[in-house]
């Protein structure tokens, strides 16, 4: 470990870190935006969900390097390539959780809202989506964390991220650089994860501490609706 390398290359490391944050976080947010309407439809129309789940399962099995490569003819060796590919994965992760979250809303809650005069759209926005939020944010967490770590693979097609430190460190036979890259990717991923947990606590104050594990580990694993809640396929 050559500590002096770090301050000497601070500005480059910072630049790569920012690029990695962008490549990890933006696709997850796009994924959320796409998953919400699709998930709402899939929760409404039962027939719509199995085919959607099949498609997302297949897409999710596609290795990231292969997906980047498949996008080269249309998007080139650009940031956009990696952003589009990682958006695809984040939809695969978040969508099942949107459906599982909406389906986990108890029927009597839904009926109570209806009895109180809520129309379907208002009921969806003010009752069902807020109750589904913890599970949805659980999916978002998986999307962001895996996005940040997957972004580094983009370096193999020349899209800059902290993966540069891996590739450059290998070529120069310089472990320090690789250590720094590993540390920063993992630290970034965990930091984003913690931020999302904090956001979830802030937006769902009624949940308290007791149901903390409702996020990724247990939730809907049993019913097979949100396979990502246990460790479902992760592309690399």
């Amino acid at each position, binding site marked *: 470990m050559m500590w002096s390398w770090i301050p000497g290359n601070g500005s480059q490391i910072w630049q790569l870190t920012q690029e990695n944050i962008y490549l990890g976080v933006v696709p997850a947010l796009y994924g959320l935006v796409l998953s919400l309407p699709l998930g709402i439809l899939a929760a409404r129309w039962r027939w719509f969900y*199995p085919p959607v*789940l099949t498609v997302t*399962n*297949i897409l999710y*099995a*596609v*290795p990231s*390097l*292969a997906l980047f*490569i*498949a*996008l*080269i*003819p*249309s998007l080139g060796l650009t940031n956009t390539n990696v952003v589009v590919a990682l958006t695809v994965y984040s939809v695969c992760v978040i969508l099942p959780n949107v459906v599982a979250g909406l389906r986990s809303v108890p029927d009597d809650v839904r009926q109570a809202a209806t009895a109180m005069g809520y129309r379907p759209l208002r009921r969806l926005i003010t009752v069902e989506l807020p109750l589904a939020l913890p599970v949805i944010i659980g999916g978002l967490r*998986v999307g962001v*964390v*895996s996005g*940040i*770590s*997957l972004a*580094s*693979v983009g*370096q*193999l*097609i020349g899209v800059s991220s*902290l*993966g540069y*430190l*891996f*590739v450059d*460190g*290998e070529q120069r*036979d*310089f*472990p320090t650089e*690789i250590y720094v*890259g*590993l540390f920063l*990717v*993992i630290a970034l*991923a*965990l930091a984003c*994860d913690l931020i999302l947990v904090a956001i979830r606590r802030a937006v769902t104050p009624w949940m308290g501490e007791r149901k903390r*594990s409702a996020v*990724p*580990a*247990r939730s809907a*694993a*049993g*019913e*097979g609706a949100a*396979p990502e809640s*246990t*460790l*479902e*396929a*992760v*592309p*690399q």
Partner: protein
Amino acid sequence: MSFFSWAWDWVIQRSNWNGQGSIPQQIVAHLGYSGLPLLIAALIAIPAGVAIGHTGRGATLVINIANAWRAIPTLGLLVLLVVLLGFSALTWLLPLVVLAIPPMLVNSYEGVAGVDPGVRDAARGMGMTTWQQVTRVEMPIALPLILVGLRTSAVFVVATATIAAYIGLGGLGRFIIDGLASDQYGPVAGGALLVVVLAILVLILFAVLSRLLVPAGLRTRRREG
């Protein structure tokens, strides 16, 4: 030209099917480089996950491993080991085994831990030994999730073995990494297509396996696989 036409033109070239480093050779190599770590990891992860699910000891550890697992950049890990130790069986096999463990560990754990306590009690009440409870009741009930774990790890290992071509491993990743290095999109696209086909075949294999292995009474509840 689209990805598929690039890939197809390369895949159907007769010269790519013969000799050293040909497509069939690299497919076989890829299967070996994925299968071996998967097997070793399964032998460790599934018994461990089942034991943790049965006893409930170490459950938090499993959840934390699951969360940390996604944050690990595999490229970084592979590259680090190679720079530190040089390329050897240890430097590609060890990370693939370690990284293949969490999905199987977590899903086996979830599967067994999720068994209805009433069913568990009934098994004990019938006089089953612990071994019988685990192997005849809990594991069959957990089988759909255990298979999901196996499938997840298998797909993951196929993908990671591709990336390991960067540190010198053979297999289909060779076409991709070598093609990228020499700016030839043909083999890059072809290799990527073959890897995707392989990953999807793995999915199909596990869909078939879960049809064949999961007891009929459990099949309707879970649509996994």
